[in-house]
């Protein structure tokens, strides 16, 4: 997950702005060079950029010039504003016009628009307008500026590119991760309890943060000049997206597209090779990663700010992020205009589906299904999205499911007394859990209902879980499963500074043949402070933790399918819950599973606080493998893996022969440990013998020197052997009392 924009401090933006990454040798370099040159040139031509030259006009005598100008003006004024005085049509010696005219618009923007929109437009049947900027005529029209002869562009020789997925070929199937600390970003191999192996480590690799693409192919770095993607074995530059002052970055699910956002509207300047005037004034660009070109750009819609309490400053508007949500197959992307409509675009042409946005009065949020699902009885292609609207007047709140591309509403559900709704799709799109926060009539107490849509079943039945008396602060589906975990928050006692206690509840469906039965509560663990739920990407294991807390830092590692005795009361449920281990990580802010579900990393980022920053590596079962306190630690990101290439049958085969595979791996592990241990022991032996040799040599030198000085063996002992202590003892009047005490504290740790 990318760090959310509001957690970045002001400092992060301004830090190291001087030390920019070297862009020389990149395709951006000519842009920067030219940019400089142009700045110089533009100064000379200042004021001329409101002028355009119109060519292709009919040649007319002086008296009908007026008429032509008026006729022309009608066309010209469709774009911007200009007047008869501002059109100059020169005449030659014969009193005839030359077929061209100079036109001055009010603003340079209008002039630009005219060039864009009027060029090539027919004036009448015989004449077609050719509109150019006056500056361009100056620049390119002069003799010698453009070579007359055509030179075929030189074809660059083919260069072998690095394999973008080479990390998948690791012999030990290790995973990589990116580590951003201080001003350095490094990529490492995870070596379990051994120190990670470095792949690359670069200073000032990014200015804001780094982010992997969803399938792990690219690592994105963010700079004031734009976004760069890196990849291949040596993490070489792959793509660049010059969005000036970009702040947020989001990949589409299949890595085909990239959305970038900046709070500053883009100012397109001349000579920019990639951005065109289309992008001027926009905040969001949707890029095609393959071509490196913008697909389309947008002005961002801000979310409505929460209502300001009386006397307070109106809180800042929140940026809607991700601005665009993608359907699972990347064929559509959509964004919401809060309270008004959902706009669905077809990719890659980025045209509005059905030419209009879908008007949904009051729409508050929507989510695409994260995977293509087939509803029973539906044979045509469809993608589903779910949205909700709050109560408006006497109309109830509504949750609806829309089928795309037909834009038909296929299922709705009305809800009452709704304060807030969150939509949670299960990763395969089999269920949607709609978390509904309801208030009582008096609006004093809150409670949560879960409305679970079973998308695959006939008619999309809805099951309601309303046994919860408190508000649910977090909810998470098991990936590829049908179980979920939620955390409820009891009312905080008024006026007490301690954070309210939370309760963690585990739900599982009843066992019922092949299909999942009704969802039932497995167990509730209360008196917790947990607020985060982190499922293993493969399901079954889940970490429930307290993050971003000042006083609690616990991580509970749960197993949902414990292979042991089962609680009698839960025997009908498809789960056997077991707490495997609880560990603490002081100041933990983030928790991330590796893509294979073998390891968990908990980390404390300096973006949140500056106390004991660093990251700890645990196994899926909560055994801590290593602790890595790191100064100014910012981000730890596992490199995602693309989905497996094995077919279902092959996967089954692997699972069947797991025992044999694991034997091999155990052998390998033992061997690796042996090697490592031997290396450590050898190293220590060497260090020890070096030390002893040094000591011996030093002693010899000392003895030699002592002899050379003619000093006795005990030259370093005090000058006067007769000392005060002897006197003390003679007097014998000092009693030293020694009190033998018990052991207060003893720490022991098994040598590992």
């Amino acid at each position: 997950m990318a760090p959310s924009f509001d957690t970045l401090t002001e400092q992060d933006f301004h830090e190291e702005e001087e030390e920019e990454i070297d862009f020389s040798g990149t395709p951006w370099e000519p842009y920067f060079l030219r940019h400089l040159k142009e700045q110089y040139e533009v100064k000379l031509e200042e004021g001329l950029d409101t002028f355009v030259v119109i060519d292709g006009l009919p040649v007319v005598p002086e008296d009908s010039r007026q008429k032509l100008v008026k006729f022309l003006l009608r066309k010209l004024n469709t774009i911007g504003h200009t007047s008869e005085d501002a059109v100059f049509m020169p005449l030659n010696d014969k009193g005839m016009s030359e077929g061209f005219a100079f036109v001055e618009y009010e603003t340079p923007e209008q002039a630009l628009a005219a060039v864009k929109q009027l060029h090539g437009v027919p004036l009448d049947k015989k004449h077609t307008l050719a509109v150019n900027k006056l500056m361009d005529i100056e620049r390119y029209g002069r003799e010698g500026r453009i070579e007359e002869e055509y030179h075929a562009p030189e074809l660059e020789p083919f260069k072998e590119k690095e394999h973008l997925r080479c990390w998948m070929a690791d012999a030990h199937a290790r995973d990589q991760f990116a580590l951003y600390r201080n001003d350095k970003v490094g990529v490492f191999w995870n070596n379990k309890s051994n120190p990670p192996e470095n792949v690359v480590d670069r200073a000032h690799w990014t200015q804001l943060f780094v982010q992997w693409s969803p399938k792990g192919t690219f690592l994105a770095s963010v700079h004031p000049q734009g976004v760069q993607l890196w990849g291949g074995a040596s993490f070489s530059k792959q793509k660049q997206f010059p969005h000036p002052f970009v702040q947020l970055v989001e990949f589409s699910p299949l890595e085909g597209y990239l959305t970038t956002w900046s709070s500053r509207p883009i100012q397109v300047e001349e000579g920019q090779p990639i951005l065109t005037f289309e992008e001027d004034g926009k905040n969001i660009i949707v890029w095609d990663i393959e071509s490196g070109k913008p697909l389309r750009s947008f002005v961002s819609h801000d979310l409505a700010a929460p209502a300001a309490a009386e006397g307070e400053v109106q809180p800042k508007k929140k940026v809607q992020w991700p601005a665009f949500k993608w359907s699972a197959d990347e064929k559509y992307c959509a964004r919401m205009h809060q309270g008004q409509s959902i706009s669905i675009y077809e990719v890659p042409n980025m045209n509005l589906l059905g030419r209009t946005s879908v008007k949904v009065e009051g729409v508050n949020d929507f989510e695409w299904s994260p995977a293509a699902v087939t509803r029973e009885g539906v044979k045509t292609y469809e993608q589903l999205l779910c949205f909700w609207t709050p109560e408006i007047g006497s109309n109830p709140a509504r949750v609806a499911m829309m089928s795309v591309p037909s834009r038909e509403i296929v299922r709705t559900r009305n809800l009452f007394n709704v304060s807030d709704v969150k939509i949670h799709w299960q990763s395969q799109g089999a269920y949607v859990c709609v978390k509904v926060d309801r208030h009582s009539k008096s609006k004093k107490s809150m409670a949560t209902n879960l409305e679970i849509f079973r998308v695959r079943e006939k008619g999309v039945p809805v099951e309601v879980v309303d046994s919860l008396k408190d508000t649910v602060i977090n909810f998470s589906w098991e990936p590829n499963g049908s179980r979920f975990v939620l955390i409820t928050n009891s009312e905080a006692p008024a006026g007490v500074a301690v954070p309210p206690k939370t309760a963690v509840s585990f739900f599982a469906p009843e066992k019922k043949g092949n299909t999942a039965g009704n969802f039932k509560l497995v167990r509730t663990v209360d008196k917790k402070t947990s607020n985060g739920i982190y499922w293993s990407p493969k399901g079954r294991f889940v970490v429930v933790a307290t993050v971003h807390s000042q006083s609690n830092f616990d991580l509970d590692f749960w197993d949902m399918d414990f292979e042991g005795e089962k609680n009698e009361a839960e025997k009908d449920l498809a789960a056997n819950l077991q707490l495997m281990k609880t560990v603490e990580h002081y100041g933990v802010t983030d928790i991330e599973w590796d893509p294979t579900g073998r390891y968990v990393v908990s980390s404390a980022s300096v973006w949140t606080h500056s106390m004991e920053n660093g990251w700890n590596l645990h196994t899926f079962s909560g055994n801590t493998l290593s602790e890595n306190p790191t100064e100014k630690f910012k981000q730890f990101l596992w490199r995602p893996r693309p989905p497996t290439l094995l077919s279902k049958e092959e996967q089954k085969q692997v699972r069947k022969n797991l025992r044999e595979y694991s034997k091999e791996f155990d052998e390998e592990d033992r061997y690796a440990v042996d090697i490592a241990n031997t290396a450590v022991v050898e190293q220590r032996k060497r260090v020890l013998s070096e030390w002893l040799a040094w000591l011996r040599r030093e002693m010899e030198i000392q003895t030699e020197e002592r002899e050379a000085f003619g000093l006795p063996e005990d030259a370093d002992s005090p000058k006067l052997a007769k000392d005060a202590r002897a006197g003390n003892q003679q007097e014998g009047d000092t009693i030293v009392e020694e009190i033998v005490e018990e052991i207060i504290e003893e720490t022991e740790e098994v040598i590992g």
Partner: protein
Amino acid sequence: MKEKIGVTSFPSHHRAALLQERSLTQIKFNKDGDLIFSTSKDKVVCAWWSANGERLGTYSGHQGAVWTVDVSPNTVLLATGSADNTVRLWNVKTGECVKTWDFPTAVKRVAFSPDGSKLLAVTEKRMGFLGTIAVLDIAYGDGELNNLNVQAEEPSLRITCEDSKATVAGWSYLGKYIIAGHEDGSVSQYDPKTGDQLENVQAHEFDHQINDLQFSPDRTYFITASKDKSAKLISASNLAILKTYVADTPLNSASITAKKDYVILGGGQAAMDVTTTSARQGKFEARFYHKIFEDEIGRVRGHFGPLNTIDVHPAGTAYASGGEDGYVRIHHFDKPYFDFMYEVEREQLRK
């Protein structure tokens, strides 16, 4: 491979709150290890029994914070240096001040030569005076504790530190060199006869002050503790850096243990450098490292503020630490401390 050693917290660590009500500046065991001398910013020097932490007595007379203390090898004389610009010499037994030397600036460190015949004093750079290292000749009267006040008036040698002031200094084996640590993180070797600088090495990060310098029992090498969060083991004869111990907090003190091959480091974020000062946050723990393998092997908690000074019992059976919190804590080592050994060491021993 982290292994922890058991060090029992000596329970009767005394509340020095009565007298040492300000932060500790230096602690020193005498050669027999039965006495501990401590100085603090509250002008008073204390002597304690190391066995039980009972106070033996105080040495009063200084007019300012006392920065440093050392005891002569025969435990006859005690030398102290203070912010009142004096070095005082005390009769250990009677507590009387036998001699006062005045300097133009505060005295930050005193150290007896191995044979006790000389005392060095490091003076502060201030008010137009450069930092110096002064060497005083010490006499021991008639050997019956009489005439201890007969001492030379003037230093026999003055070394002026032109580049960067010395913060700590000590004597190598046979008093052959004076070794000094500087404010800029460098370490110098001086000839104690001529005062010439023989060598200067940038041992620590530039501009990270060296806060402590203590010798090994045989004085062939020493350890330095610096603000740059590391301690270094350095050869006295050529200033070669032998070992480096990396901590995660600025270090104020470092000591080499006798008997076992460990070093003890102490430090912690100064209160002014941390926003929320909790014991956890400040890292106020004594850290044990293996001297030869440079690994951290254990920690001992207890102080509520940064550790300012550490000294190890000459026999290696205990250590004492003094903190910013005003406490002196004495810890006696347990069996596991002595038993702890790397496999390679065991092998070496069997040979």
